[in-house]
């Protein structure tokens, strides 16, 4: 047999590398464009709201606070900026958690709440609202936040612990997640049954999700969850990408897929629990953000991770603007609107790209 294929011409391999670089440039360009759009959305978010200040005044208040009125200073820095930043931070957290859950569970329909986190958090919130009971020794609004966080983490730790003991298969994890969801829903139902009408209404409002209680402290804590988890994901970027080739091939590449799953699951839990504790259950972002990112840049985590974070942040920031402007003078719960803003974009992307990423 002639060895026609055995003398690689270096000219050819140079063009192959060049084409790869072109793909990378396209990915970076898309990420930069999304980052810019997110920044503009953030600015617009700060500029909208009751009080009708001009964009130029708001920009001035941001860049040179001492040159604007005291009232505008307070409105921009103490009221609007924390809320607008919370949208960015929570959007990014939910989308990253969703992206990694889809990767870990090898399922396109997974999202941050797949393993029962939102049910557990809702039960925690109900404990605070209905019974005034706190699992952490804190008071006031933090009681609710603390409860939601602790129970959300508890739900994930249950799955984590059981998987550690009994071996980790995706199926068992998902089934345990479903069991945990039913368990906490039942407990929640019990509390709702005995709750007063007033606390029921409070509970419903909480579960619809709202950014309005954001403060600098909360933004800081939510941001901390990102700061803690992102480096872990970045370090595992190659291993996480390899998981998409299937478990056997990932193992053949030397990856302990069971251990990777458990570790990453904890990081996802931290992100989702923090998000749900501060703003309630905001659906859709964690499901659709990663899908949009995947369609735009693919699943190489070097691009997929930042792109997911940005699409999530952008979706929630745009939704925040919409929640203030859709009905003038009324702030709509953001959880209701995420679907409305994300959906058209999502559907148009699905229809315009014909590829079947998941079977």
């Amino acid at each position, binding site marked *: 047999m002639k060895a026609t294929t055995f003398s690689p011409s270096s000219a050819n391999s140079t063009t192959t590398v060049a084409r790869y670089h072109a793909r990378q440039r396209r990915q970076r360009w898309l990420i930069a464009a999304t980052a810019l759009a997110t920044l503009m959305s953030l600015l617009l978010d700060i500029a909208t709201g009751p009080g009708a200040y001009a964009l130029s005044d708001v920009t001035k208040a941001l860049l040179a606070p001492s040159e604007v009125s005291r009232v505008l200073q307070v409105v921009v820095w103490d009221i609007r900026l924390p809320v607008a930043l919370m949208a960015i931070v929570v959007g990014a957290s939910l989308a990253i958690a969703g992206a990694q859950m889809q990767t870990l569970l090898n399922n396109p329909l997974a999202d941050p709440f797949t393993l029962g986190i939102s049910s557990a958090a809702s039960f925690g919130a109900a404990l605070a609202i209905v019974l005034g009971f706190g699992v952490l020794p804190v008071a006031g609004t933090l009681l609710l936040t603390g409860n939601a966080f602790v129970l959300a983490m508890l739900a994930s730790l249950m799955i984590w612990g059981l998987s550690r003991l009994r071996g980790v298969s995706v199926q068992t994890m998902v089934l345990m997640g479903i069991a945990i969801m039913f368990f906490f829903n039942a407990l929640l139902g019990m509390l709702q049954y005995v709750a007063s009408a007033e606390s029921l209404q409070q509970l419903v409002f909480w579960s619809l999700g709202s950014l309005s209680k954001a403060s600098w402290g909360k933004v800081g804590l939510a941001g901390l969850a990102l700061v803690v988890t992102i480096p872990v994901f970045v370090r595992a970027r190659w291993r996480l990408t390899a998981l998409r080739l299937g478990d056997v091939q990932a193992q053949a*590449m030397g990856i302990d897929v069971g251990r990777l799953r458990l570790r990453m699951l904890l990081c996802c839990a931290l992100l989702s629990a923090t998000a749900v504790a501060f703003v309630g259950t905001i659906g859709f972002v964690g499901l659709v953000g990663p899908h949009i990112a995947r369609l735009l840049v693919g699943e190489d985590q070097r691009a997929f991770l930042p792109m997911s974070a940005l699409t999530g942040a952008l979706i929630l920031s745009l939704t925040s603007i919409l929640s203030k402007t859709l009905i003038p003078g009324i702030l709509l719960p953001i959880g209701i609107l995420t679907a409305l803003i994300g959906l058209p974009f999502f559907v148009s992307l699905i229809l315009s790209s014909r590829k079947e990423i998941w079977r």
Partner: protein
Amino acid sequence: MSLIIDQLSCSLGKRRVLHDLAGMEARPGEITALIGPNGAGKSTLLRAIAGITMASGHMTLDGLSLETQSLGQRTRKLYYLPQDTSTQAALSVFEAVLLARRTQVVEPNRHALAAVAQALQSLELDPLAERELAALSGGQRQRVAIAQAIVRRPRLLMLDEPTSALDLHHQLQVLDYLHRLARQDDVIVVIAIHDLNLAARFADHLWVVKEGRHIVSGRPGDVLTPQRLREIYAIEADVEWPPGSSPRITPRSATRRLGS
């Protein structure tokens, strides 16, 4: 310096799948073909060597015991190419092959990219470099998986039916490539394969397993006899052996049930 299986047993669930395999050796610079009927335990054997499937016993690679080494340690020296390479990952071919390299070595980007480009070219995959895996045919995907294997430059390369989805051109091209890889880089190559004519032509050595047992090992000319083929596959076959060439097998008929 070779891969030696002294004793190897493996159970999956409650089923004993490999029964005390022993006396099997695969040498560097050679292609060892692993043959046997469906369900014989070929994939299980290769996975057990790779450390993906738990097994008990004793094996050595270049004199070092494998069973004391973790998956991570083993995969620095060996690579197992799975039988099923299907995936729906939204990765380009280039990204996927780069991934195979990156999960193994840390090196300057420039070197990794050059290695990937060369692996793609060796397998005639460079025109597909920017295609997404999900948009490839089964055979194309299989060749990408082979590129992923060779870009890792393992000492021991185990391929599980790597030509099962390939057209005739690429069957020959891939096996020829592996043959040269073994010879030039002194790699130990083990291939599970069903096509006995390809095995006879490219392999230096055969391992035959059936129902989880090691039946026989040896040179293709010694192993591929009509009696053996009847014993292993329950078929009647003619075997010609033209001088200066490899044995040629012409199956006639399947005689009786193959069992299990």
